[in-house]
């Protein structure tokens, strides 16, 4: 049942993603991509429990490396997106 449940979530989020992203204007496509970089760093959540399993085995080290890679995305992605979006201004403002 778990499999069906996860697949169900997958299906719904893909449809939702399409609906949301088609509404993003072309002028914001670069921040959209760097923001997507940040969100794809969500892998950090899966890596945390592996990095902290205390086993000092292969899975442990791979998990720790994954935390590092994903953190680059999370921190770098959100910061650079914010830096870009701060520059977008309307005429006369």
């Amino acid at each position, binding site marked *: 049942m*778990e499999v069906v449940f*996860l697949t169900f*979530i997958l299906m719904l*989020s*893909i449809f939702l*993603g399409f609906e*949301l*992203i088609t*509404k993003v*204007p*072309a*002028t914001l*496509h*670069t*921040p*959209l*991509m*760097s*923001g*997507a*970089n*940040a*969100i*794809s760093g*969500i*892998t*950090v*959540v*899966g*890596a945390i*429990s592996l*990095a*902290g399993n*205390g086993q000092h085995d292969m*899975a442990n080290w*791979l*998990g*720790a*490396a994954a*935390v590092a*890679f*994903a*953190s*680059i*995305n999370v921190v*770098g*992605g*959100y*910061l*650079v997106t*914010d*830096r*870009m*979006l701060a520059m*977008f*201004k*309307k*005429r*006369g*403002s």
Partner: protein
Amino acid sequence: MESTQLTIQLAYVAAAALFIYGLKLLGSADSARKGNLLSSVGMLLAIVAALLDQGIVEYQWILLGFVVGGAIGAAAARLVQMTAMPEMVALFNGFGGMASLLVGAAALSGSSNTFTLVTIVLSILIGGLTFTGSLVAWGKLSETLGSGAVMFRGQQIVNSLIVLAILFSAVMFCLQPENSIWLYAVIALSLLFGVMAVIPIGGADMPVVISLLNSYSGLAACAAGFAVNNNILIVAGSLVGASGIILTQIMCKAMNRSLSNVLFSGFGSVSSEETVIEGEIKPISVEDAYYILEAATNVAIIPGYGMAVAQAQHVVKELTQLLEKKGAEVNFGIHPVAGRMPGHMNVLLAEADVPYDQLLEMDDINPRMETVDVAIVIGANDVVNPAAREVESSPIYGMPVINVDQARTVFVLKRSMASGFAGIENPLFYKENTRMLFGDAKESISGLIRELSN
């Protein structure tokens, strides 16, 4: 479900809601910054929730990972130049892929049911090819590697063999998960495949490649979510996956090419049929250009990758201000594939303080083109090529372009007569109303500014 588990799962639900609402706010430039902030709050929530997991017995390695990754990410975000955003996004796509590959490989210990094994293979495979593919894309964008398409005889056959080998190793891995040779084979082959998939794609097609790899980095996170049974990874991963796919579609449509055409056939392999272009090239000096520009009341500026290379966005802004002070109306026409990634020009001009409502999309500026006195093309080539409308034998025939040739006068700022990335002749340069302003774009514009401010 015991209470800690319940708390963690509820936090994930809240995080997903924040991601979704954050993306919704990205639908308008006014609310986008707030959307990004909400999304980052969602991420923080998800990370804190993950830290509550009772399977965690020690925190030092997690912390080390955070500190190292966070420091690199923060430094990169602060230091990167806006002209180098495509490179940065390409690298981050790769890191996302690598993280998923590592999580997939780590999830192997302690799981043996076939479905989990299949998702582990998928997260390694997609993650691996995203990683090396992105590194190659980064190399091409930063010119560390040549930006041209690398083609050789038998390339398709070699690639097909790699795909077959990947399929074989993947199946063997699922059948014999205890034999780690198959794991290593899948990792090595997916890394190799990423390289092979991106090397035949030229620099001008990079907007498509980055968008696609962006999508893959999300799908890899999705697969990793299945592998470790975590639904927040699936939700966030598929949002990113959908985003990348939509951008890929937009880019392909703007080039009038199918995705498979971009991925599998180098643009260089153009039929060598010579098209005779009538007319002659008419160079113009900065001074003469100034006289025409001074009389103009309606000016359109069409930037391309050359503006980024010349770092000319700030002088362009200055020119715009001077023209506006003289009472002219100035608009920018932005082609979807101008630059090396979706929205590249918009970010550069935003950096130079050009308001975003002055940037018109192709479909908005084209109907006004006949009323434009002077269209200034800065470092753009294929996206303003009238051959896309007029020359049926042209490789870009049918591609939607900005119709600058319909303006009264066109200035083309260009270094030399070398053709663009795609190597396609541009009849625009030979038109009656076109004047070529040769030289570095930044210097030419600075020259115009000097004349105008006198």
